[in-house]
């Protein structure tokens, strides 16, 4: 029972990381029809940002890195959007392949800059302990990750629901042409969406340094699962992403616990396929009448 309880924070924190990653993906996919495979490398960039900041901020690097990684990864995403992706709007399959090329280059660049072996980011001392709850251990680091994801989701929700910029963004997600003729500068909205989405991937990268080592292919471990979150949650849907990320994170960790690690991914895959039999377009769907 205690070991089972220990699975809970693991599942929740993995879900939290998946959520941070999937938020950017679901909005770039939903709003621009773009599948960004290089998103995984923005995670990696965020993690290496924390690694580099250790020289300057020492053991508090993780905290300092959060805003910096957001900016670094966001800037990378913005550059990618401006230079390449914007020519491919509405062609998700082509963007998938294009950005995979970018992802290859970025990974190799990381290998050349930081070396192929993994590096470690030292967590601040106040995050290394754990608290006992109901006989199970709750590591502070995992709690911190959950709180971080919660804060980010709240931020995104406030942005979408309360700010004028956010309303413009939702307008573009729902109907790009109509938004454009209503005077929304869709190009600007796209840039901002890309910046924020990529930035959140950077934040996820920092969070991941608390769970494990940092390497050039860090992003590839999470990107596939994050895409599954997008598929299961429904395109461009904040609620869907939250529920799907937590569900997949939990499923993953409990499947690993009950069977073994190698079967867990197969189970997750089977569950997602099964889920699509009930909700082929994910949890939440934007309805439209057009024959595509």
């Amino acid at each position: 029972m205690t070991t089972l309880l220990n699975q809970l924070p693991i599942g929740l924190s993995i879900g939290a990381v998946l959520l941070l990653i999937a938020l950017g993906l679901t909005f770039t996919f939903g709003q621009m029809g773009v599948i960004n495979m290089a998103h995984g490398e923005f995670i990696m960039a965020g993690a290496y940002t924390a690694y580099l900041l250790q020289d300057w901020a020492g053991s508090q690097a993780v905290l300092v890195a959060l805003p910096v990684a957001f900016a670094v990864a966001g800037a990378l995403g913005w550059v990618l959007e401006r230079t390449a992706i914007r020519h491919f709007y509405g062609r998700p399959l082509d963007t998938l392949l294009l950005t995979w090329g970018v992802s290859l280059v970025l990974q190799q660049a990381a290998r050349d800059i930081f070396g192929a072996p993994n590096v470690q980011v030292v967590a601040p001392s106040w995050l290394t302990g754990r608290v006992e709850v109901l006989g199970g251990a709750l590591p502070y680091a995992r709690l911190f990750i959950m709180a971080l994801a919660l804060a980010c989701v709240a931020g995104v929700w406030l942005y979408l629901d309360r700010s004028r910029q956010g309303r413009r963004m939702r307008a573009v997600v729902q109907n790009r042409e109509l938004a454009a003729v209503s005077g929304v500068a869709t190009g600007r909205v796209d840039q901002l969406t890309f910046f924020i989405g990529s930035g959140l991937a950077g934040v996820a990268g920092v969070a991941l340094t608390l769970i494990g080592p940092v390497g050039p292919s860090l992003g590839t471990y999470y990107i596939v699962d994050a895409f599954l979150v997008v598929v299961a949650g429904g395109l461009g849907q904040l609620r869907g992403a939250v529920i799907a990320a937590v569900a997949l994170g939990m499923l993953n960790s409990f499947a690993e616990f009950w069977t073994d690690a190698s079967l867990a991914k197969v189970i997750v895959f089977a569950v997602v396929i099964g889920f699509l039999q009930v909700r082929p377009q994910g949890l939440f769907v934007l309805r439209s009448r057009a024959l595509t």
Partner: protein
Amino acid sequence: MSDRLRGYALFASISLLLLVVAPLALPAFRLDELAKYLCFAIAALGIGLAWGQGGMLTLGQGVFFGLGGYAMAMYLKLHDAGGDLPDFMVWSGVEHLPALWKPFGNVGIALAAVVAVSVAIAVVLGVLVFRQRVRGAYFAILTQALAAAFVILLVGQQGLTGGTNGLTNFYDVFGRDPEAEGTQRTLYFVTAIVLGVLYLGARQLVKSRFGRLLVAVRDGEDRVRFLGYNPATVKTVTFAISAAMAGLAGALFVPVVGIISPSLLGVVPSLELVVAVAVGGRYALAGAVLGAVVMNYAKTSFSEQWAGGWLYLEGALFILVMTLAPKGAVGLYEQARDALARRRGVPAPAPTAPQEVAA
């Protein structure tokens, strides 16, 4: 009709090149390498069919390649062991032959499984996914997740699959020594002929009414329903054919190269196959074959010089192709040919660029 003649002439000259010139001109180990590229070309042919013609971007062909490869490798391991346990099982402390392995002692069953297992999985996945009208990017993501899960499963089930090392060290390939030059030569011919036959078959399929229907499904799946066809069936059949091709490719790969392992099958190798098809030209089957051979040749020769550089080159090449020449090498060739024809004053055929439909 001249188009058709030109097609036959091209096919005949490439056959001549592969079946006569290459075996005479290349040393045995280079021929063996070429055989390896031809294996990838067979898998690429399947991608050309599913993606180029049918619009299904399958990012998990490594799975089917692997299923075919492991089926063949399991037979070879059991044959080598001659009634005992295969070597790697002994090392992993397995005491009895797992039930999963038992049928593969029979060569007939193993060879049938090469195609049947891939087809069965593709059909199940295809029916579940296409019937629900899950398509486009969603399908791509799901196949990629399948590839990721498959590799993790292979690595984790050490005693069953040989883990990270995969299955290797075959001493007897259908009664021959796999290291012998003669065997390598024979395997090369077998691979080249299988590729040729599959190419002709795929070409016939593309030209048939089914092929026209497939293009229609790619460009307007929902409209096809109102012509009285079920697009899910068309797509599932095509996906299964492409899976069968990948399975065959994997099965040939095992004796040709002497190993099958997870690192050959995951997300990245599966994507690399797609990259090769895109570089060669996704809308032409010949482009898929050409792309697979050229890209793998480039990878081998470049990696010998500067391993990390290949990734830069592959990434950059891919960005360039997607941005500047989405129809790949074949597309560039057609553009050049049309431009030449215009300069000679012959009106070029109207360009009909297939546009990806937003998912």
